[in-house]
């Protein structure tokens, strides 16, 4: 019951953005990927999800023993992979409620109502998807839709960016509940704000220029990176100073 990236290389418009990433995430584990802007964090998650805007140009993605490298995103979704997008597109005419209902039909939904309340999305269910949503509303709606998929693997792309403190707490509780039911989680963050609210993170990976250059427990990595920044922090971590 594993996600495994084997020397994964990902291209965006013929430019190699991910340059050989290998990673293994077991059931119930939370992995965090940190890195500066443009290091390839979102591209990595897009490739695992199978979005068409990115192309795997080398290596492979294995999920539960199955090579899914060439599988379209909707089939990956059926296998239980779900992505909370960093910047979901605004879709006019399609209400959050419409997507919720269509997804409930696909995945079944025994706790839709309680989920809408937990993430406080009930007040904007009838609004057009992401149109005019605040930062917090967008992230909550994204996590809500992700949770409707009842995922085996949740890919969370900067759930804490542009979000107020209350929303971060709410999002963190939702992520905890995912983890508690055994979902593997890969969480990408730029600010790290949400990490303080999570009770357990198994591993933090530092992604620089498309490569994982350092991986360790959060207690080791985070204080150094957030204090010294990526460049100096890495020198300290790698040099063992």
């Amino acid at each position, binding site marked *: 019951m594993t996600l495994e990236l084997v020397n994964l290389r990902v291209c965006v418009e013929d430019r190699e953005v991910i340059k050989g990433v290998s990673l293994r995430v077991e059931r119930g584990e939370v992995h965090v990927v940190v890195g500066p802007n443009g290091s390839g964090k979102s591209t990595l998650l897009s490739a695992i999800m199978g*979005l*068409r805007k990115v192309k795997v140009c080398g290596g492979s993605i294995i999920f539960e023993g199955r090579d899914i490298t060439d599988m379209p995103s*909707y089939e990956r979704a059926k296998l239980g992979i779900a992505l909370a*997008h960093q910047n979901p597109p605004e*879709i*006019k005419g*399609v209400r959050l409620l419409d*997507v919720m209902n269509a*997804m409930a039909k696909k995945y079944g939904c025994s706790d839709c109502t309680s989920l809408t309340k937990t993430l406080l999305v009930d007040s904007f269910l009838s609004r057009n998807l992401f149109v005019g949503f605040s930062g917090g509303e967008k992230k909550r709606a994204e996590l809500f839709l992700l949770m409707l*998929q009842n995922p085996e693997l949740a890919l969370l792309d900067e759930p804490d960016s542009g979000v107020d403190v209350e929303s971060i707490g709410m999002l963190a509780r939702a992520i905890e509940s995912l983890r508690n039911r055994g979902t593997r989680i890969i969480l990408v963050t730029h600010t790290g704000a949400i990490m303080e609210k999570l009770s357990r993170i198994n591993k933090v990976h530092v992604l620089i220029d498309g490569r994982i250059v350092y991986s360790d427990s959060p207690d080791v990595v985070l204080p150094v990176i957030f204090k010294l920044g990526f460049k100096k922090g890495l020198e300290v971590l790698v040099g063992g100073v």
Partner: protein
Amino acid sequence: MYSSEQVLRALEKPALYGPDIDLSKYRIEEPDVGEAREVDQVVVNAASRVGLDSSSLAYVQKNEQALATMMTKLLEKYGVVVLPTREALSRESIARELAWRLVDPAKDKYTAFTYLYGGEVGYFIYVPPGVKVPIPIYTCLSIVSNNVVQTSHNIVYVDEGAEAHLVTGCAISHGVKDGIHIGISEFYVARNAKLTFTMLHAWARGLHVRPRTAVKVGEGGEYVNYYVTYSPVASIQTYPVVYLGRNTRAYLASIIASSEEGVYDVGSRAVLEKPGAAVENVSRVVARDVSETYARAEIEALESDTKGHIECLGLLLSTNAVISSIPVITSRKRGALLSHEAAIGLVAEEEIDYLMSRGFTEEEAKSVLVRGFMNIDAPLPPSIKKQVDYILDMVAKYAVG
């Protein structure tokens, strides 16, 4: 009155827009008017193509056969008169006063043909003053044979302070390959009255459609026109006109799913005749295959203190389909507030990609997006909205193939 000579001459007059059709290629059946206790199965099947329940139909037309159904008895309880136009013209003086007043029989060959040879089939509906009809009035026109002309002359009068919701379904019976439908509609919305008119269409590949509609809205009146068409068609050309009096409002909406080699020349025109008149003219076109669509919309303000807005949006689902959006606003007095917006685009790849990541196949994702694109907030009563939603679900599925 129109001289026979004028109308005869008009038989040779092509319409301003749309492909010109040689009417002599089609045969017209002998008009027949009567009552039906039960709706014919072919009509039941045709009606179901546009989501209509045959048991609720008050008027049914099969080729040139006009039939009032038992439903008219229920409507009579509210004082509503529903009759085949031919019968109304002989029985009701108001029908005679209103016929061919808003639509000029000499306008083009289609109006002339209907005036001269149509036999006045079609429906006449009268709603007495102050009556708010609690149930929609359903009518259905269907063509069940090949190579025929179907004419229909419809007259509706909603009297002062009354309110009615009319739903007309036009559908072609399975197996019918060609023909032409000409519908003449003259609607009157009296002072402070309200009429919503929802038209649901499912045509056939070789069929030509030439509706000619004019609506007059009296002071304080309200008119809502909601037009939906899907399924292949050879050509449609329609450009209804709505004349708006003092303190009136109109909402004119067209939802078009164009496909195959069809030519769809559709839209509506509003004339703001008196101060306080306001109109919204909205269209959504989804085009695929090699279809050609001309989405016309025009607002002409003759007076100040009038308002009008046009919104024409098009979505291309194929690189070989063509949508041409033609909004026109004309102001003849200062103080008329007119505006328009038009946009045509492709389905956004980013949106498809997003929905696919939520587990939708590419076709399902497109269908969700097309369905959303067609969502407009038309002021229709809930029961009709539900019906329209059902049809739009079908249209969205059809549009993406």
